[in-house]
C-alpha cells in the first residue's frame, strides 16, 4: 500500500516536471513566431515592475540596514568596522539583492498570476479565449514571462541600490561612522564579476516566477478551492526554486568568473 503511494507520488512528480518543461519550452518558442502581444507585455511590465517597486525598495533598504547593524558589531571586534560598506555592497549585489527581490516578487506576482489564470480556468474564460481563436499561451503566458524577466532585472538593481543606501543610513545615523568612507569602500570592493553575478540571477528568477505562476494557474482544477491550492503551490514552488537556482547559479558563476 505504502509502495503504491510512493510510486504514485513519484510518477506525479515526474509528470509535473515533464509538463512544466514542455510548458516552459512552448512559452519561450512563442517569442519567435507571430502573433506577439506587445500591449500585454507592456501592461504586465507595469503590473510586475511598477507594482512591485514599493515592496522591493522597502525590503532592500531595510535589509541593507540590518546588514550594516549586524556586520558593524562583528567587524569592530576585528578593528575592521570601516569595511561595513564593502560588506553591505558585496552581499547585496551578489546575493541578497537578487534572491530577496525574487522572493518578494514571487510572493506578489506568482500568486497573482496563478490566481488570475486559475479563476479564468474555473470560469471557462480560457476556453472562451481558445474558442475565439486566441492561444492563451501566447496571449497570457509569454508576455508575463518576458515582462517578469525584464522587470526583475531593474527591480534587482533598485533593491541593490536601496540596500546600500539603507546600510549607509545605519552607518551614518546609528553607528555614527563616516559616510564617505562607507561609500568609498563599497565602491572599491566591487568588481565586474560581482555585478555580472548579481544581474544574471534575476533573469532566471524572473523566468521561474512567471512560468511557475502561469503553469499552476493553468492547471487549476476543482473550482474556487482549486484556485487557492494553485496559488499556494505557485508561491511555494517559485520561492523554493529561486533559492535552489540561486545556489546552482552561484556555483556555476563562481567557477566561470574566477577564470576571467
Amino acid at each position, binding site marked *: 500500500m505504502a509502495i503504491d503511494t510512493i510510486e504514485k507520488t513519484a510518477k506525479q512528480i515526474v509528470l509535473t516536471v515533464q509538463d512544466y518543461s514542455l510548458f516552459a519550452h512552448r512559452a519561450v518558442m512563442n517569442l519567435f513566431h507571430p502573433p506577439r502581444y506587445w500591449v500585454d507585455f507592456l501592461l504586465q511590465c507595469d503590473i510586475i515592475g511598477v507594482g512591485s517597486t514599493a515592496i522591493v525598495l522597502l525590503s532592500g533598504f531595510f535589509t541593507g540596514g540590518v546588514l550594516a547593524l549586524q556586520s558593524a558589531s562583528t567587524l569592530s571586534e576585528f578593528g575592521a568596522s570601516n569595511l561595513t560598506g564593502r560588506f553591505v555592497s558585496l552581499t547585496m549585489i551578489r546575493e541578497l539583492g537578487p534572491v530577496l527581490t525574487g522572493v518578494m516578487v514571487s510572493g506578489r506576482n506568482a500568486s497573482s498570476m496563478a490566481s488570475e489564470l486559475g479563476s479564468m480556468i474555473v470560469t471557462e474564460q480560457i*476556453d*472562451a479565449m*481558445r*474558442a*475565439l481563436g486566441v492561444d492563451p499561451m501566447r496571449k497570457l503566458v509569454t508576455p508575463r514571462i518576458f515582462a517578469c524577466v525584464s522587470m526583475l532585472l531593474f527591480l534587482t538593481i533598485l533593491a541593490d541600490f536601496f540596500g546600500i543606501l539603507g546600510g549607509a543610513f545605519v552607518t551614518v545615523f546609528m553607528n555614527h561612522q563616516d559616510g564617505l568612507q562607507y561609500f568609498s569602500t563599497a565602491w572599491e570592493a566591487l568588481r565586474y564579476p560581482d555585478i555580472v553575478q548579481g544581474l544574471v540571477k534575476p533573469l532566471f528568477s524572473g523566468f521561474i516566477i512567471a512560468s511557475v505562476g502561469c503553469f499552476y494557474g493553468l492547471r487549476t482544477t476543482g473550482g474556487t478551492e482549486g484556485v487557492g491550492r494553485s496559488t499556494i503551490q505557485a508561491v511555494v514552488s517559485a520561492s523554493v526554486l529561486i533559492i535552489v537556482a540561486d545556489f546552482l547559479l552561484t556555483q556555476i558563476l563562481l567557477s566561470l568568473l574566477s577564470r576571467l
Partner: protein
Amino acid sequence: MSASEPANGAFPLPGQTAAALEPTPAVAFENVSISFDGPPVLQDVTFTVGPAETRILLGPAGVGKSVLLKLTNGLLCPDHGSVRLFGEEISHMSEQALFPLRVRTGIVFQEGALFDSLTVRDNVAYQLIQQMVPDEVIDARVHEALHFVELDQTFSLFPGSLSGGMKRRVAIARALIGHPELVLYDSPTGGLDPITSTTIIELVMKQRDFYRTPSILVTHRLQDAFTLCTHRFDSELGRMVPLPKGHADPNTTFLMLEEGRLIFDGSLHDIVHTDNKFVREFLL
C-alpha cells in the same frame, strides 16, 4: 450575412453530381468516446448536424452534454472516434490548426464566460480586436450585435455590473458578432428565471430563422426545447410566434444522452411518441 444567404454547404454548385449534391454536415460525430481518469463520459456517440439544422441536446446534469459541445469545436480531443467540423477531421488536429475553424464557430458558455476585466464592448469585439479590425468598424459591429440581443445600453459597462441574463445575452452577442457558420449554446437558460429564459430562447430562434445558422443547443429545460420546436421568429413583428397547431420546425430535432450514450436522435414527433423508458421519464 442576409436572411436569404444559404448556410455553409447548403446549396450545391451547378453541374454537381447526385453524390455531390449531398450537403456537407456542419458537424459529424462518429463513435466518439472520451473519459477523464475514470469511467467514460461519452461512449460511441454518433450524430450529425446538417446545414440550417438545430439539434437540441437533452439529458440530466453530469451526463456529458458540455463535454460533447467542447468536443465539437476541438476544445477537447476524443479518446476514440472521429469528429468532423465543416467537413474537416479535427480529432487530432493541432491547437494552431484548429484556430481558423474555431473562428467560424460561435460558442455560448454555460455561465457566459465573459472576460471580467474587459468592458462589454471589448468582450463582444474580442475576436475582431485580435484580427486588428479598425476601431470604427468594431464599434459599428458591436452596436449591431448588442442591438440583436437588445442590450445597446451596456456598451461601456463591465460584466460585473450586469445581471445573469444580461451576461448570457452579451455572450450570445460575442458568439454571433463574427457571423459564425455554426453556433454552440451550452445551457444558455440554465439558472435563469422563466421570463429571461424566454428572451434567450427567442434570440436563439431569431438566429435560427433569420440567419439559418446550424446549431447545437444544450439544455435540460424541456419547456425551452419545445418552444424552439413549436415557434418561429417573425421578423416583421420582431418576436416569436407559435406555428400552427400540430406543426413543428422540421429543422429542429432532438438528441438525448444517458450515462454518456446517445439514446435518442429524432424529431419532436419521435420524442413525444418514443417507447424508450428513460426518455419518457425525462419528459414527464
